[in-house]
């Protein structure tokens, strides 16, 4: 099977990789680019643990073929903190104990970031429906929703 050459930008850095036609973006992120922060938990777009932002759009990277990344900008959990400084969402998740096992956390943080970039002042209902594509089995979502709402308030103030 011949491989295809792809150039993309991941977390601001130019990357190049060779991929087979059936490889997903998630496969390439995890196996070829060593970015294992995006998690594979269902491979069917039902759990959101592999959420990344592709050219500004929130996607499940398990549903994107890696060849489709050609020329695109991809943001993953590994690029969310800026140097030493955590993104306010990351900080608030820690403060609120909004994670238990933590496997869904990268996907939820990416999804929440996409929400706040689009809607800086979401209602609780908006947060709940926006994050409905991200499964969490541990927390019951309470602390997650609170952390997102608190972050939104903090980011509006600053």
């Amino acid at each position, binding site marked *: 099977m011949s491989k295809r050459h792809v150039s993309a930008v991941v977390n601001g850095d130019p990357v190049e990789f060779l991929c087979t036609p059936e490889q997903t973006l998630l496969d390439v992120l995890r196996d070829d680019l060593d970015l294992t922060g*995006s*998690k594979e938990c269902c491979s069917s777009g039902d*759990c959101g643990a592999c959420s990344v932002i592709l050219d500004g759009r929130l996607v499940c990277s398990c549903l994107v073929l890696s060849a489709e990344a050609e020329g695109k900008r991809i943001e993953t959990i*590994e690029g969310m903190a800026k140097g030493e400084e955590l993104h306010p969402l990351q900080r608030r998740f820690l403060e609120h*104990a909004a994670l*238990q096992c933590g*496997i869904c956390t990268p996907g939820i943080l990416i999804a929440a970031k996409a929400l706040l970039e689009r809607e800086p002042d979401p209602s609780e209902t908006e947060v709940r429906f926006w994050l409905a594509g991200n499964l969490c*089995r541990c927390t*019951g979502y*309470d602390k997650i929703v609170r952390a997102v709402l608190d972050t939104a308030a903090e980011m509006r103030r600053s």
Partner: protein
Amino acid sequence: MNDIPLAGTAPKAELKWVGTRGPRPDGLDKVTGRARYGADFRLPGMLVGRVLRSPHAHARIRGIDISKAAALPGVKAIVTRDDFRDMPSEFVPAGEMMVNYRDIVRNVMAREKALYEGHPVAAVAATSASIAREALSLIKVDYEVLPHVIDAAEAMRADAPLLDETMITAGVDPAPTKPSNVAKRMEFSTGDLKAGFAQADFVIERSFATKPVHQGYLEPHACLASVNEAGQAELWCTTQGHFVVRTHCAKLLDMEMSQIRVIATEIGGGFGGKTVVYLEPLALALSSKSKRPVKMVMTREEVFLSTGPTSGAHMKVKIGVRKDGKITAAEAELIYEAGAFQGSPVGPGCMCAFAPYEIENARVIGYDVISNRPKVAAYRAPGAPISEYAVECVIDELAQKLGLDPVEFRLKNGAKAGTRALYGPKFGPIGLVATLEAAKNHPHYSAPLGPNQGRGVASGFWFNIGGESCASLHINEDGSVTLMIGTPDIGGSRASMALMAAETLGIDVAHVRTLIADTDSIGYTFLTGGSRATFATGMATVDAAKAAIRQLCARAAKIWEISEDAVVWEDGHAKPAGQNAATFPPMSLAELAGKAGKTGGPISGHAEINAQGAGPSFGTHIVDVEVDKETGRVDIKRYTVIQDAGKAVHPGYVEGQFQGGAAQGVGWALNEEYVYGADGKLQNAGFLDYRMPVTSDLPMIDTVIVEIPNPAHPFGVRGVGETPIVPPMAAIANAISRAIGTRLCELPMSPPKVLKAMQAHKANGG
């Protein structure tokens, strides 16, 4: 599960760290994507392992031909039943469940028969995933397809297909002469049932059914095994108990335990489901054959098809009460599905069924039944949510019948210190009454309800367990502390351990780092399960810290040239005491650590314990639902969890356990179930069709932490992880019944069933 001593030392009133909500040691890595879970490890030369699974629910395996697959370039090893030695039938305790190696070896790799769709038949290690997949398609399995049986009630019929021709029901006297699918009958009883029911003014008897539900951990099972030519193995895996993995793998593969080092990776949820082995022995066997590292990761479909859900059940519950609200007698019959091999949690189901109540005359009979489903695994308070669901529904109906408030009715009959539980022991200090009082006084309980809404209440009980734990605490030269424990951290326990160590040592928690040590780096530690980690490993942590403190005091005594007995430890400092008091300025932990080399060498504290005195935890939940009259859809409007934690070491993570348990209970109550076709195949092996609650399905979940200290634990800890999943199903069922005026006695209460119940009720003039 032993008697809890009534007397005990009250925990210190003034705590500096225990009870605070600081950051967790592993938190940063988990919000930045750095934390490494089961599937995140790799090694040079690594092969990909894949499993061939039975497409049939029940089939004799006449032969397996691997020749074509073995000849495929890139295939480095294949294992089948021929690679595993048969094991004798032998039950050994494994946490809250019992395991039998005859069955484990067959569950890991089918032998005579495939007993469920998804049962492993062969495994392949190849240089790439695509070659491994192709190899699986080249393995020819000669199946003789047999009739199957899925439901336990059908499996109990005399004409049901037999899964195991040698199974004679245990616990029946005289023993049956013919084999059946009933593995075991058990009975727990007290008092005089007949006399008890004769005293009753009202008796209600109902039948209930529940479906198997999966633990639903998001992280699929994953491991990476590396075995060298000398047979020395390293195994990275996502597990609730790496020592238990070592025990099982050593047994199944005939290896000495010292040859297997198991490293617990970060674990992406378990809830009891990661207390057994599936891939691990296969990966070790493949690596042993190929002499290359082998990585295996399940797909979500494989997780649903072949790893343990909890039991589905059929139950009958009968309770009698006097007009004054006193329960006079109670009886239950519980039939639990074990899956393909015996060992459902019907035992704890029987023991827990009536545990929240003081009942003089009671009997519970349980049956453990096998059928062509994946073998059940532990799931949060295994067995209890099922039987207590049925009992709590009847309790609610009795309260309605008597015209009593359901909380008051429970208070009238509730278990308290001194109550003897049906399964034997007398309770020590317990919190059921406290949770009921808190429920009664909670604003939620008196808030007005809207149209089509109902409020339900239910209580729940779980034993909690103790067991073997080790802790090693090293005082580093700079005064920082490294704490090593052996219970994988599934929801913040490293933070709790750090808090307890800091509290005991009297130092800032920021200086304590907790690590999960591998099986070669610390003594045997039983798994994270039974709500035992914070209790048992917490106890070991405190003991290790105290051992270090004794060392620190001895070093101070040496420096001051006074007797060791004349030194006390206070607020992180050694201080001269008695007649030497104030003779020397106190020395801090950091000062003593810095001088350790000159006063006798490194300072550490170790503890190896078998923790006794686990404190049972009771909870009471309040839930408001709204039922859509047109569709039967149930919306959770408000939810409050009240539970006795003994002591909340990190209240944030205790609340998280309460909320998470309630959310899982909502799924169990309303949507989750295994759906089988007539062909015995699972029809909803994915998150789209096996619908777990998502964010938009739930409201905020309010919590109240009640603290009735467990006298056996230095800080009063009981363990909190399991009880929260016990009350939700009944609380929601009770709320629905009050919203629609009729009762559903079957889970899940999915929209079509609720709609049907409403229509039937209407047709009957309701």
